[in-house]
């Protein structure tokens, strides 16, 4: 519900920006030194062992942007949440009878809050009105991983008591992250920039192994993100 509220707010803000931008369509990137404010949104797909845990989710954020000559520096605060982790539906095999059991009440979530700095530079060509760019960035990301109500596979007396549940300790950490990628930028107005981003993210964090559910440790966490940013620049 919280996420729906955020998405609605972002949509309203974007519409407002477009309405207030009275300039004609322009294909030029703002030059000189400018600064702006913007919104970022991205869908993140976990990779490798992280994908064994979650399918992914959306992240949204606010950013401050500086442009000097053709280089853009963004500082972004973002938040995201992946819920319905795969362990909720994964079965474990109990060694004492060889059968597979699920944890019907299980829940698994991971939330992120991050502050990152990104550098963006355009390539020396354009595709019609679209300007391709590459980007690299880093920052710190706080994450909290919660798992609740798993049936405990470590029981040793048959039959398995499926009401014997446990919750491992939450995993929380603030970790360093790096990202690199690229995208396409488009200026619907001289002071507006819309960017489609593709980013590969690495978070130097750690999730404990849960090998009873065939889950290896996750380190580092790797994600691929596709996103859309909208920035409004105030001419200096």
């Amino acid at each position, binding site marked *: 519900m919280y996420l729906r509220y955020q998405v609605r707010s972002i949509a309203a803000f974007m519409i407002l920006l477009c309405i207030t931008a009275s300039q004609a369509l322009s294909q030029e990137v703002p030059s000189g030194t400018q600064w702006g404010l913007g919104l970022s949104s991205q869908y993140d797909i976990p990779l490798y062992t992280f994908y064994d845990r979650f399918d992914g989710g959306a992240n949204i954020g606010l950013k401050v942007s500086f442009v000097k000559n053709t280089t853009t520096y963004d500082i972004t605060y973002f938040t995201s949440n992946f819920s319905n982790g795969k362990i909720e539906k994964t079965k474990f095999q109990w060694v004492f009878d060889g059968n597979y059991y699920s944890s019907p009440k299980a829940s698994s979530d991971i939330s992120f809050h991050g502050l990152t700095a990104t550098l963006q530079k355009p390539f020396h060509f354009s595709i019609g009105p679209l300007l391709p760019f590459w980007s690299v960035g880093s920052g*710190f990301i706080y994450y909290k991983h919660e798992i609740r109500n798993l049936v405990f596979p470590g029981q040793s007396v048959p039959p398995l008591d499926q009401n014997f549940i*446990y919750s*491992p300790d939450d995993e929380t*950490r603030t970790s*360093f992250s790096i990202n690199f990628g690229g995208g396409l930028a488009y200026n619907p107005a001289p002071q507006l920039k819309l960017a489609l981003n593709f980013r590969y993210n690495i978070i130097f964090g750690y999730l*404990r*192994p*849960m090998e009873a559910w065939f889950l290896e440790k996750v*380190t580092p966490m790797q994600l691929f993100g596709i996103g859309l940013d909208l920035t409004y620049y105030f001419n200096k």
Partner: protein
Amino acid sequence: MAPKFKTLGKIGILLAISLAITFIPNHFAYGTVTGKIAGKIVDDSGNPLPGANVIIVGTQRGSATNADGKYFVLGVSPGQYSVKALMMGYESVIKTNVLVQSGRTTSLNFALQPAVIKGKEIVVTAQRPIIEVDRTSTEHIMNSNEIKQTPIIGSVSGLVRYLPGVGLDTGNRMVIRGGDYQDINMYYDGIPMDSYQDINIFSVEEASITTGGIDAEYGNAQGGIINVITKEGGNKLHGTVEYSVAPPRQRHWGANYWDDAYHLDNDGNSRLRWNDPAWANEVDSLTGRKVHEKIDYTDMWSQSIKVGLSGPLFLKHLYFSLGTQFSQGPAGPMNVVRYTLPYTHNNWKVTYKPFPNLTVKTGGFYSWNRGYNSGSNVGTGVRFTTAGLEAQDIEGTIRGMRIGGAGRYTDDRNIFLPIGYATGGTHTSVNDMFYLSLTHMITPSTYYDLKIYRFEYTLENQGIPDTVIANGRTDNENWYYVEGGKGINYTNANKKKMGIKLDISSQITQSHLLKAGFDLQRYDSWQTSIRHFTTIREMSRIAGDYTTGKGVKPTKFAAYLSDKMEFGGLVVNIGGRYDYYDWGSKFPVTYALSKLSRPYNSYTRFRDLPKELWMNPKPLHAFSPRLGLSHPISEKATIHFFYGHVYQLPSFRDMYYEEWYAKNAKNTDKDVNKNGVVDETEVFNRLNDSSNRSHFGNPTLEYEKTTSFEMGVDWNFYQDYILTMTTYYKSAQNQVKGGSVHQFWDPNRTATAPYIHIQNNTQYEDAKGFELLLKKRFSKIFSFQVSFNLGWATEGWSGERQRTYIPDGNFVKKYYFEKYTGDSNGDGHIDGLDSGAEVPVPLKESLLTKRMLAADNYLQQLKDQGAFIKNVDGVDGLYYVSTHYSSVGHPRDNIERRTSFGLLLYFDLPQNFGPEIFGFKPFADFHANMAYRYQEGLPFQYTSMNGKALWRSAPLSSTTNLRIEKSFHLGGLTNTFFVTISNLFNNKQINNNSGFESIVSLRDYVSYGLEGYSPLYDYKFDYRGKTDGSIYLYAPRAFSFGLRLSF
């Protein structure tokens, strides 16, 4: 990159200067502590200028170009200089900010323009080359400016930990590329140290760490070398004083240790009954002291002060530098004292340059600290389990509390002993080093550097109790100690080392720099440890000639020859090193003789082992080749390659150690001559334990050896960004490891004889990995350094596991007996006229024959079985058989951290930066420094639910520290206020070092993600989340503040 130009209109006396420069020879040595400047001087058309002069401004050092316009200046101390090139008819050029590093060549070329205005000089800021083209292995050098830019890390060892290839082992000690912490050698001003000494950061001119191949002049360091060069001082007085404080706080995770949860009885009730007046106000009848007094351990400030000073002394060309540091803070929760005992470290150096071609230096350091001895085997002496009390040795010997195993055990019986209560006494350790060095330029291209040095480490004890008292006095409820017992547990030691080191360098041609030298070290080292509790009585030592308090006197010698060849861009470093070691002490043919049923089976009886059975071990020899290459790939990239062998001696403990136990700790020494006193000859005559406990040194140990390969690329891919990628492989053989045993076949014993434990060259280790270093050189406002490491370290066993010595009949006849008598003077009585020594009684003929026959028969039996029997060198009639063992390699569970990552961020706003607000510029001279490090946990082996032995690794840990500084300039003083935040993000993470297996159940951790107790068990005393101080890494977020004055 275009240099910056500033044109000055100075009138100079060029001719005079030129003449003066011509006659100033070069000086200073290009060895471990100096560098070289070399280059070419051309005119505006690019033609070489022979006879042009180069001078290091402010010194009398310089050189002149040869016919090709090339010059070199050898033996320049590390630092930043201005270098001037001049020639009649041309405008002089001064290049400032020329950085010279030890062991490196600074390339500095000049192009002189014809002079239009007489005396005109052009001043240029030299741009430090991005890529170090003469580096043939992985070496990182930090000069004093770079060290100053990283104030968040207050030590050389701290800085080094952010470099690729450097990790932390199970004991949080520095290791390099999968090696051991003992594999790192340190050089202090060119003097080899045997252990790492942390130096005041304000005294450091340059610190370098070689994690890859080392040059032939270095040895005894399979892991790497840390080279610290201290400041010399200059013509101006400079100094830095830094004072910092940290406010009171609880410096650990979890609940306060006075919390009831730590002090529960068997019924789960707290023993601390502050609300019970009778308990709370109980008074000790003997001392009148209140028994139960709660002393807060969180209300203390910590402080530290560091001072560095350098400059001229009273004579011309005489300079000094010195540094001192002192720190004190809370001793830790529930400790024997509230504040740490004082610790101080001081270093100093005096440099005298009486002539241009001669430099004399003297320097050293001195450190001192004090500590308390625990008079018990396990610290506070009591272990409490869910089953009840489990007493361990002497109780109550030292104030404090023991937390362990995630709070399952609590030793709290000593928490109400008075502050400073320690019946085991105190110890003081002193480390001091002194050296004298002479550097003499024989010719402009040849010089030598002679060093004489002395190092001494002393550990002494005070207040050791005379007797052992098992029980103390407790409170009315017979739980908390009011006065504890007394145990004896101390070590005295003295280690001296004297050395002489000579290095000669000669630039025989433009392309060949030959270096040769030797290092001769002589030791005098002893150590004695005594432990005496109710269940243990032990004496262990390192001693020469079997005499406690007398040192072993080994000699170490090394000689090397190397050539650094520079052909255009190709640099080749080739060399060889010879190492020699003489043991300097006699050893018995085997300590396993001490486990025989009768002869030699105690410390005093072993002393009387016949002379023929003592031997001098064979000296050790080793030759190690070293080859390094470096070549440019492009204008902005170079590749380097290294191959080499390094030999390293085992530790003194592995080589010389003796351990003697008593069968029954309650027995005092036997009064053999019945004179009512324990004479000197009778001391320790009850140390005759026949169990398998004892450890002894091994005189057959050889050098450990490592073969290293390395390849790396340095790439300046953009502006001042450098990427370094390195891959390495190290194969270590003959590593010393425990687990071997020696036995002596006993003709009188039918059962297996006890054995002694011995270290042996049986371990092999392999390490390989990949390192990445991305650096942005500091310019403008911002710079950073990122390092990443991916590495594998494995170990295994290959070598002798057990050795059994077997005598033949002749040996038995000469050396075997079964009884002793106290009648040392042979007068038929045992009385005070006897010395107290036990004298062997020869066997009766029939019994001797029986024993001889048994020995011969056993030998024959072994031969008939096809055993491979070897003769013990130099001892007639003594043989041995051995069993060997080898194992498949497995991860080094105390070393390997598969991945690690380090980040240093620097943010520096210059003076006059930013807006002015009410006459104040808040952003001017503002600095920030952030350090982030993460490392994967150590590997461990566990058994899965289906019985398989599997390897996994402990969780990763990370930490982030931040320091913010703001400087003001008043007169000639720079005042800097700073705030340091450690563990910035307050990460709470489980200890991934040693002890991880005691904190978690490994199977539960890997299978179910549990870092706590299994939900199967209802722990009555579940302290999870409360006893966090012992199971989590790093303290909670903390702030400290300080002020630094510099001039």
